[in-house]
Structure formats: structure tokens, C-alpha cells
């Protein structure tokens, strides 16, 4: 039997932050990580390996990917959307593009402020949108601490952003022709463009070198430790403390509890052997889907409906970003978007949150608009085509040859509300290779999100046209970004309609913390990672202060 002060299940973007805070405070920590340790030698500048074969998600994450259904009347099938989770030390921060924008103050109280500004009729029927049990000001110190810990490059954003206690620790990423073109265009529209805040080393930081703008940031391990993934930043520091023990290849099968109902540790399988770890505190820090699955699988006499699920709230309030893209043609120009990074981008948040009047628009919420790089050849050739261009044949080939280097694009991360019937549960049929039920997602894009996406498509087209695009186009319907997924273990003040409290500890299992976007009451319209890391920092700090 192995024991520690704190057991972290999943040493990724969230667990890595917690490990750093806990070990810095003197706690002995064991982390169970399903995947291996990777390093810069595992980098591949290879779109087929990274983006088509999803090598970093194989085999565990792909084998247990949730099944999907639009509503409860149909049987779930394979997810129509990529669900890419990386099982490795560092988790999905190993392959994320690193865009690290904070949520806005509005995001923490979007329900009450919507009611105040637009009345109850503005909240879509069936939506379970809720205020967070903490404010932007409560989370601000943790945001600042995480930005310093992983190294976020950025500059003053927009007038819409919440106040900052300290500047970004790194200057923004290098400007490019594309970021300058899109910045000037946004300004010409009266918008407030800013360089994307990114967990990427614009300069050497904490012993790691600067980024070389290789164009293979997302879907890949950084080839030189220049990305602020937790494996090369906070986890490295936690390991250096001597107080973090990492067990890789450890597939956790249940969170164990004692007769007092509290969490006592976890059971896992490694090298084909079942083992267990005990701890005073357990921090569940896997991906949204696996957080929910492990709670539901950890039934016991004290917790017959699964752990932390007495109120039936585990799996509820699931959300996923809706992500429309708009493409634009800049004839005769060479945009060189195969260079650089996704997070080497110009951002606009004039259309995020409640930064604009929603009266009469038919939706609430908004999106961060991002004009990025990193358009690789398979993605470029497989992208939607403008009207009139054939999808195959001589006309397609001629269009590709003439225009492939002249296609620019912008993406939006449209907030998705929670709804009563958008849930995660265990599928009655689908199982992973070990015979364990897979998660079933019940979700579809609703009118609020579709109306918001249509609005964002118009804004993105307007932006591209202001930058000189002679033609713009987009896919017929927006994609669901199942990697930006939220909810399932909602944070709230009331144990009747949430799973964890404002510090991330389960209402009914007070020594069990849950880390990750599964605790978010709303999705917001920004990338999720920085906020989940700030919450992890806050949860770990709270344990340190109370222990």
C-alpha cells in the first residue's frame, strides 16, 4: 500500500498545476497518470501523424472516447466530432495551441446579468445557465499565478477584459504579416484587436527556450519545450521538489471511499496488476468525460448512485463550444499561414460575452474571434470551398494551385449554454477495451448557439472583407468543439444543484476535489485551459490553507 497527503488522478493541465502548488507547500503528492511521459524528442512535424492519426490520443483516449446522441430518443453512436484527449504527463496541454485568455467578469455572473439587462425571456427555454459561486475578482490572483507559472505571452487586451494585478510575464508572440493585416482590418471596423495571449515562450522563460514558429504546435509535442505545457513547466518544478511521485501507465478504475464516506484513495491497473494508493485528499483531474465516468463508476454502499452524486447532479449541465470558421480569398497574395502558430493570432472580443447589445438578436453569450496561423496542407485542401468551386476534378485542382496560398481564415468559440437534457452518463452498450462502460453524450447545437454562430459568421466575414478578402465562405453548419467541453460536475453553492463548492471540493465528499472544465457552470466564449488551471491553483491553495 502506498500513501500520500494528496493523490492526483490525471497529471495533465489541471493536475500539473495542483501538483506544483501542493509540493511547493510541502505536501507529499502521488499522481496517477494513464499515459506515458513524453519529451521534445516525441515531436513530429507531420500532419498525418498528428492530426489525422491522432497519435497522441491513441490508444487509451481514443478507445474510451464517448459515444454521442442528439437527444434521448435515439441510440448513441460514434461521436461526429473529434474528441481528442492526450493521455500523457502534461495531458492535453502537450498538444494544445496554448491560447490563454481569461474569462471576463461577465462570464461569472452571466445569468443574473442577463436577467437584469434583458429579462427572463432572454434565457432560452430549458437552459440551466447559472452564475458561478465565485467572481472574476476571486479568481484573479490565481489567473496571475498561473500565467507566471506556465509563462503566458501577451499584452494589454481590450477594454472589455477584467482588471489585472500584474502584466503578462512575457511580451506577445512575434507579429506577422497576417496578424498585422487582421489587426489593421479590425481597427478599421472600430473594433479592439489585440495579440492572442499564449502560453508560448516569445522569449526564453524559466530555463526553456523561445518558440521558433514551426507551424506544428497544435496536435503535437513542442520540439523544444517552448510551449507552456504543464509537463515542461509546473510538473518539472514539482518533480524537482522531491515530493511528487508520478506513476505512469496507471489506469484508474475507481476512487475508493471509507466507511465514513470520505475518499480514501484510488484503485488502478498498471502493468496488468491491480494496485491502490491511499491519501488524505483525492484530486480528480482527468478530462471532463473521464471525471464524470470515474465518479459514476465509483459506487459503494455509502454512495450507491456513484461518488458525489446523491443529488443526481453528476453528468448534468454538459456544454461544448460551437466553433464556426469563415474563410476568405485574398487573390494574388501569399499569406504563409502554414508558418507560425494557432496562438500567434489577432483576437477580437467586441463580440464576446455581453460586450455588445443582444437586444433582438435571439441569443445570449458570444465568442472570442481568432485570426490564427497554422493552416497545414491537409487541412487547407480539405477545408470548405467557396461557392462555384467544384469539390473535385480539374476545376478543383486548378483552384488549389492558384489560390491555396491566398486563403485566410478566422474562427470563433461560441459560448454554449447548459440545458436540462444535455447530459453525460454511462452508455448501456458501448464499452472500452477493458469492458468498462463508455460515457454517453446527449447534446446538440440549440437555437441560441446556432443564432450566435450565424451572427459570428457575419462578423468574421466582415473582418476578412475589411482585410481585403474578395470572397468569403464557410461550412454549411458549425462544428461542435467536443474538446472544449464543460460541465458534468458543476460548481455551485447549493448541494442540490451542483457537485462541487466554490473551491472545487465535492459537497458530499469533502476531501475529494474535482479539477477541470467539468466544474464550469458556464462555458464562456474563450479557450478553457487557462481558467481551469486558475481554478486548479485555487483548489490546491485552498487545501494547503486548510490542511
Amino acid at each position, binding site marked *: 500500500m502506498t500513501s500520500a497527503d494528496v493523490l492526483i488522478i490525471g497529471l495533465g493541465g489541471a493536475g500539473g498545476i495542483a501538483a506544483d502548488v501542493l509540493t511547493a507547500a510541502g505536501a507529499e503528492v502521488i499522481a496517477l497518470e494513464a499515459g506515458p511521459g513524453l519529451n521534445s524528442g516525441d515531436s513530429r*512535424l*507531420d*500532419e*498525418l*501523424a498528428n492530426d*489525422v*492519426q491522432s497519435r497522441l490520443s491513441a490508444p487509451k483516449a481514443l478507445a474510451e472516447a464517448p459515444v454521442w446522441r442528439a437527444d434521448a430518443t435515439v441510440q448513441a453512436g460514434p461521436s461526429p466530432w473529434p474528441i481528442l484527449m492526450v493521455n500523457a504527463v502534461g495531458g492535453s496541454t502537450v498538444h494544445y495551441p496554448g491560447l490563454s485568455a481569461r474569462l471576463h467578469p461577465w462570464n461569472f455572473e452571466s445569468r443574473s446579468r442577463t436577467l437584469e439587462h434583458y429579462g427572463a425571456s432572454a434565457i432560452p427555454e430549458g437552459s440551466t445557465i447559472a452564475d458561478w459561486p465565485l467572481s472574476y475578482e476571486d479568481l484573479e490572483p490565481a489567473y496571475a499565478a498561473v500565467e507566471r507559472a506556465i509563462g503566458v505571452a501577451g499584452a494589454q487586451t481590450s477594454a472589455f477584459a477584467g482588471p489585472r494585478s500584474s502584466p503578462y510575464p512575457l511580451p506577445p508572440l*512575434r507579429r*506577422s*504579416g*497576417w496578424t498585422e*493585416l487582421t489587426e489593421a482590418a479590425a481597427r478599421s471596423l472600430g473594433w479592439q484587436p489585440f495579440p492572442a495571449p499564449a502560453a508560448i515562450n516569445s522569449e526564453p522563460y524559466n530555463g526553456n527556450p523561445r518558440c*521558433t*514558429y*514551426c*507551424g*506544428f504546435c497544435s496536435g503535437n509535442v513542442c*520540439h*523544444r519545450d517552448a510551449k507552456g505545457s504543464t509537463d515542461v513547466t509546473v510538473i518539472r518544478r514539482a518533480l524537482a521538489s522531491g515530493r511528487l511521485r508520478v506513476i505512469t501507465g496507471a489506469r484508474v478504475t475507481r476512487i475508493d471511499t471509507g466507511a465514513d464516506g470520505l475518499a480514501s484513495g484510488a484503485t488502478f491497473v498498471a502493468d496488468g496488476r491491480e494496485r491502490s494508493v491511499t491519501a488524505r485528499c483525492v484530486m480528480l483531474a482527468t478530462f471532463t468525460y473521464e471525471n464524470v465516468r470515474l465518479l459514476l463508476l465509483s459506487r459503494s454502499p455509502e454512495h450507491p448512485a456513484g461518488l458525489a452524486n446523491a443529488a443526481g447532479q453528476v453528468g448534468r449541465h454538459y456544454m461544448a463550444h460551437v466553433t464556426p470558421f469563415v474563410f476568405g480569398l485574398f487573390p494574388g*497574395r*501569399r*499569406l*504563409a499561414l*502554414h*508558418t*507560425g502558430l494557432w496562438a500567434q493570432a489577432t483576437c477580437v472580443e467586441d463580440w464576446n460575452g455581453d460586450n455588445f447589445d443582444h437586444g433582438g438578436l435571439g441569443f445570449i453569450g458570444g465568442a472570442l474571434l481568432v485570426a490564427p*496561423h497554422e493552416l497545414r*496542407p*491537409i487541412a*487547407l*485542401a*480539405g477545408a470548405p470551398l467557396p461557392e462555384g468551386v467544384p*469539390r*473535385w*476534378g*480539374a476545376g*478543383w*485542382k*486548378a483552384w*488549389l*494551385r492558384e489560390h*491555396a*496560398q491566398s486563403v485566410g481564415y478566422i474562427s470563433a468559440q461560441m459560448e454554449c449554454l447548459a440545458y436540462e437534457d444535455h447530459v453525460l452518463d454511462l452508455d448501456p452498450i458501448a464499452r472500452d477495451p477493458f469492458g468498462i462502460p463508455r460515457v454517453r453524450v446527449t447534446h446538440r447545437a440549440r437555437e441560441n448557439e446556432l443564432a450566435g454562430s450565424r451572427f459570428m459568421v457575419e462578423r468574421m466575414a466582415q473582418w476578412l472583407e475589411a482585410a481585403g478578402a474578395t470572397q468569403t465562405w464557410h461550412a454549411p453548419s458549425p462544428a461542435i468543439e467536443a474538446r472544449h467541453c464543460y460541465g458534468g460536475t458543476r460548481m455551485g453553492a447549493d448541494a442540490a444543484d451542483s457537485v462541487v463548492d466554490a473551491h472545487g471540493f465535492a459537497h458530499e465528499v469533502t476531501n475529494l476535489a474535482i479539477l477541470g472544465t467539468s466544474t464550469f457552470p458556464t462555458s464562456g466564449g474563450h479557450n478553457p485551459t487557462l481558467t481551469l488551471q486558475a481554478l486548479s491553483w485555487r483548489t490546491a491553495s485552498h487545501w494547503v490553507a486548510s490542511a
Partner: protein
Amino acid sequence: MNAARRAVLHAALDCLLPADEAGPGAVGLGGASYVERALGAEHAASLPAYERGLDALDATALARHGDRFAALGAQARDEVLSDAGAFLELLRTHAIEGCFGDPRWGGNTGGAGWALLGYPGPRTQWSEVEQRLG
């Protein structure tokens, strides 16, 4: 893959991206060699769809034009292929992978697919000058 199916595969890929005066078609770009290799490896799950899809192209060609798909003229091939539905989309997806993916996976012969797109190929760094607009 037997010779009959291989003939249909090659003909169909060259319908998607035909050879022209400026360069090779999908087969010359390595699309066929990529697909044949991948169907025995990472795309093995698609093999039954290929067998059905390729056989259906031949059957439709015989029924409509009295000859096998690969023996048809360009216009007749296009017409038969345009009715192939989901198989056309699968083939297009794999043709894009094979023509524009890294050559180490058996396609994109000599980087010719990348040249078609004006893509110089992967590099570990791009300079500020290379990131300027042309």
C-alpha cells in the same frame, strides 16, 4: 487489393485530381500508393467500404456504359463517380491525405503535392521575413 479493384482505384483517384499540363494527377502525386498502404494499416477499417465502393463503380460503369470504370472516357468516369455518394467523400478525404501528407506515409511523391499547394514543406523554424505577406 486485386488488379481489377486497383485499376478502378487509380482511375477514380485521377478523376478527383486529374493530371494536366502543369503536373501529375492523384496517382502520380502518390495518392494511390498511400491509400493501398494505409488500407493495410491505419485505415484498415475502411477496406470493406473500398471493396464495395470500387466494385460499385465498376458495376455502374458496366450497366450504364457497357464497360469497366477504368476503360471509360473522362466524361463518363466523372459521371459515374459523381453518383458514388459516401464512397466519393471517403476517397476524397484519403486522396487529400495521400497527396498532401508527409511522404513518409507513402504518398506525396517527392513533395509534389506540397508543391502544387505552394507549401515548401515542414521546417522547425520560420523567420520574421518568411512570415511577411507576399
